[in-house]
């Protein structure tokens, strides 16, 4: 019975979705005159000197969204910790170590993965990638170590420091713009020449901060969840 209702509901949704989207032409230039897309592309190249226009949108034009997004991750890590928190575990954790091959492999890969992550977020304004991508790559590096060594410890204190300082950098860069008489998150540094590493004013700095923050937060999330082990009754 319930299935039938759901299927009818889905059929209605499907009908309208198909109806609407069949009228939106794929790959067609829909916007004439002034529009957000052309404005962003133009300003990204000429006013901000950032070659990756997705980065300039994420960090500058719609930087407020990104601040919110970083906050969502931060709060998700907080809420997750609050949900899974227990004062003390009962009994002994059931754990196993990965084989030697996996462990040495993980050890070997760990540093290159971190380096790759750092590369991705430092070059976020020049090439595809950025804080979110780089941060996630760094988190996967830590994930590898956490999986290979059951007793691999990530210091909670260090994570908190990195997370907080990166977040504070983001927020203070925004507020600095306000203090200097401009608007929140507005660029106040020289913009350099396009396609240089040092270009785009505060954009790369913010994206690097985002990279650190996302990396620390995702590592924290994974660490919290992985520590949620089965306990032997004792």
């Amino acid at each position: 019975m319930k299935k039938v209702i759901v299927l009818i509901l889905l059929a209605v949704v499907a009908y309208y979705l198909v109806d609407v989207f069949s009228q939106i032409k794929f790959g067609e230039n829909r916007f004439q005159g002034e529009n957000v897309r052309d404005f962003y592309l133009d300003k990204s190249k000429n006013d901000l000197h950032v070659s990756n226009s997705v980065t300039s949108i994420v960090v500058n034009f719609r930087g407020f969204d990104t601040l919110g997004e970083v906050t969502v991750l931060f709060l998700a890590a907080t809420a997750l910790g609050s949900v899974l928190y227990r004062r003390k575990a009962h009994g002994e954790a059931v754990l196993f170590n990965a084989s030697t091959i996996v462990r040495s492999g993980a050890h070997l890969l760990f540093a290159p993965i971190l380096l790759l992550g750092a590369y991705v977020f430092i070059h976020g304004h020049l090439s595809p990638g950025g804080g979110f991508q780089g941060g996630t790559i760094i988190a996967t590096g830590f994930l590898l170590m956490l999986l290979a060594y059951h007793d691999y410890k990530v210091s909670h204190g260090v994570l908190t420091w990195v997370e907080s300082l990166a977040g504070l950098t983001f927020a203070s860069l925004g507020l600095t713009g306000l203090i200097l008489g401009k608007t929140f998150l507005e660029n106040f540094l020289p913009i350099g020449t396009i396609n240089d590493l040092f270009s785009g004013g505060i954009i790369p700095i913010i994206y690097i901060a985002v990279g650190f923050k996302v990396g620390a937060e995702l590592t924290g999330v994974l660490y919290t969840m992985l520590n949620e082990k089965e306990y032997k009754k004792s």
Partner: protein
Amino acid sequence: MSLGSNLDLLTVTFYGTAIALILIGLYAALVKRSLIKILIGLSIVDSGINLLLVSIGYLKGGTAPIFSPAVIDKNPAMVDPVPQALVLTAIVIGFAVTAVALALVIRLYRHHKTVNIDEIKNLKW
């Protein structure tokens, strides 16, 4: 790499796949009784939505919206970067919500020793 010919066919493929994913995911989320299956359904819906959003931003013959040294002087047509930025946000938010949801599932399992929705019924559903 550009998607030149057969634009009609590709329209059907991308939009169709995205809508199919949304519907399949919604079906799983609404019908299945396992909490984890419900969340799998929701994450499939997210995938569908993201695909739809990026497809809308595509421009025939456009390049990626990056002014790399190779293309900067040619002034090529570029795909719309705005939906890409939105999807970037949506993906990260989706992950955050999924992680919190799974933590809740673990907590529910600790209490009820089950993840079946029919057996977790202290509150009315």
